[in-house]
């Protein structure tokens, strides 16, 4: 899933300065799962905003709404009657959701309430970790399912640098060395021969370096 973290409250209030009526729009997708952008998060943030503005003697009117997914034209259509009633929409979706909303509703400013942080999963409730950098060309076959692009701080493709110490990365003793994980895994699977294959220079065109990416299923086009 896409993980997002709520922006600092002060940053959000700064974005809303000068507005008297806004919509706080949640997303029922990934950010609901990671507890930052769903129904509940919309309620909490809206209350905080109202309270802060009341305290300043400058009240704000907020429409609270959550759609199934903001990255889907069908669902964001649900708010088409409400958007013209507000001066701005504060989206609690990931960056993709904010982008979809901004493309659909062109005459209303769209503000992000979250920082979209990474593609990952939850190790336990409230604890999320990155596992994919969407480089566009999956190398997990060579590395036993552990991603060197994501898990190595330098995205090295041919093994650990000289800073790997006791299983930890040189940048932080709390961070696992991605290559230690890969080597341990390849060893346990008896696949260490894959380590000695040189991965030649990567083609980053599949990454964002090739410009904004798209995927088209021809069989679904009519």
């Amino acid at each position, binding site marked *: 899933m896409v993980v997002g973290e709520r922006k600092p409250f002060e940053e959000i209030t700064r974005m809303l300065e000068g507005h008297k009526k806004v919509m706080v729009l949640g997303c029922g997708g990934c950010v609901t799962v990671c507890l930052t952008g769903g129904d509940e998060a919309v309620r909490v943030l809206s209350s905080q905003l109202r309270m802060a503005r009341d305290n300043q003697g400058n009240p704000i009117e907020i429409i609270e709404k959550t759609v199934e997914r903001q990255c889907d034209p069908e669902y964001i259509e649900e708010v088409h009657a409400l958007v013209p009633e507000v001066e701005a929409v504060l989206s609690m979706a990931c960056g993709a959701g904010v982008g979809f909303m901004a493309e659909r509703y062109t005459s209303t400013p769209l503000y992000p309430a979250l920082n979209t942080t990474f593609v990952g999963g939850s190790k336990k409730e409230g604890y999320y970790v990155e596992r994919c950098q969407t480089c566009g060309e999956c190398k997990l076959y060579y590395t036993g399912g552990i991603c060197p692009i994501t898990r190595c701080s330098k995205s090295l493709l041919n093994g650990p640098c000289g800073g790997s110490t006791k299983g930890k990365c040189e940048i932080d003793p709390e961070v696992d060395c991605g290559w230690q994980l890969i080597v341990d895994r390849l060893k346990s699977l008896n696949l*260490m021969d894959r380590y000695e294959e040189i991965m030649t*220079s990567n083609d980053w065109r599949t990454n964002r370096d090739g410009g904004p990416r798209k995927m088209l299923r021809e069989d679904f086009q009519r």
Partner: protein
Amino acid sequence: MTDECKTESRLEKILRSGKFAVTGECGPPRGADAEVIRKKCGLLKNNADAFNITDNQTSVVRMSSIASAILMMQEGLEPVMQMVCRDRNRIAIQSDILGGAALGIKNMLCLSGDHQKFGDHPQAKNVFDLDSIQLIQAVRGMRDEGKFIGGEEIKGVPKLFIGAAENPFADPFEIRVPRLAKKVAAGVEFIQTQCIFNVTKFREWMKGVVDRGLHEKVFILGGVTPFKSFGMAKYMANNVPGMDVPEEILKRMKDTPKEQQAEEGITIAVETIKQLQEMPGVAGVHIMAIEWEQKVGEIAEKAGLLPRPSV
């Protein structure tokens, strides 16, 4: 190993003629004052065969490696241009290789580079378009096949003697020899190792290197760094990632009176070099006297490595 040189490098000539090589190191200044390099060159001259010029080491901004290397050549010393993958993509890297070679640089060291987190610009975006092994492949392809990474032909190939680093003390230990094998397969010609304080562990790694016959395909130069003080030894033991300083060495520094610690550090370095000279497969030493360039000559002298042979 073939004694036929592929470049005009003095370091390559020394190594291929079977002589025990000595390299030193020179860190560029954090400013545009060329005098700093010239002064360091004065201290280093004739004390080693070639001298590494570090490339923004520990991710701290310094005078560029290429420019410093040119200044060094003006002083009559042979530089080894270090190049890290952290700050440039393959376009800039290949461009700098061409530029460096055109200006007369004859040795290059291919490194991944320290993470920018350690430096003075932790906010920077890192590149790592290539890693060190892919960089070795790139330079080798440019020199021997006359082709850029992208496949286009080079008119006027860069004649560089190709080196890399290896840290026998980093983890996981069991892939440290295979990792060297990958560098050899990529085309590296000489290796300078991380500072050796744990000679026993280095010996174990070297045995693995010799067992695989890698010492016959690449020249291994053991890294040696003298401690200036017990404080420095402690700092390196605890704060520098991938550094292995055994307890007995720390104790030896600690038990030495403060005013004699620098001398003791040099004694340890000389002892290490003497052990390396006896070790099968070791082709030379790389003396990294960090901001202590004036001691390289003394260490080389005491280890019986001076005068350097002329080739």
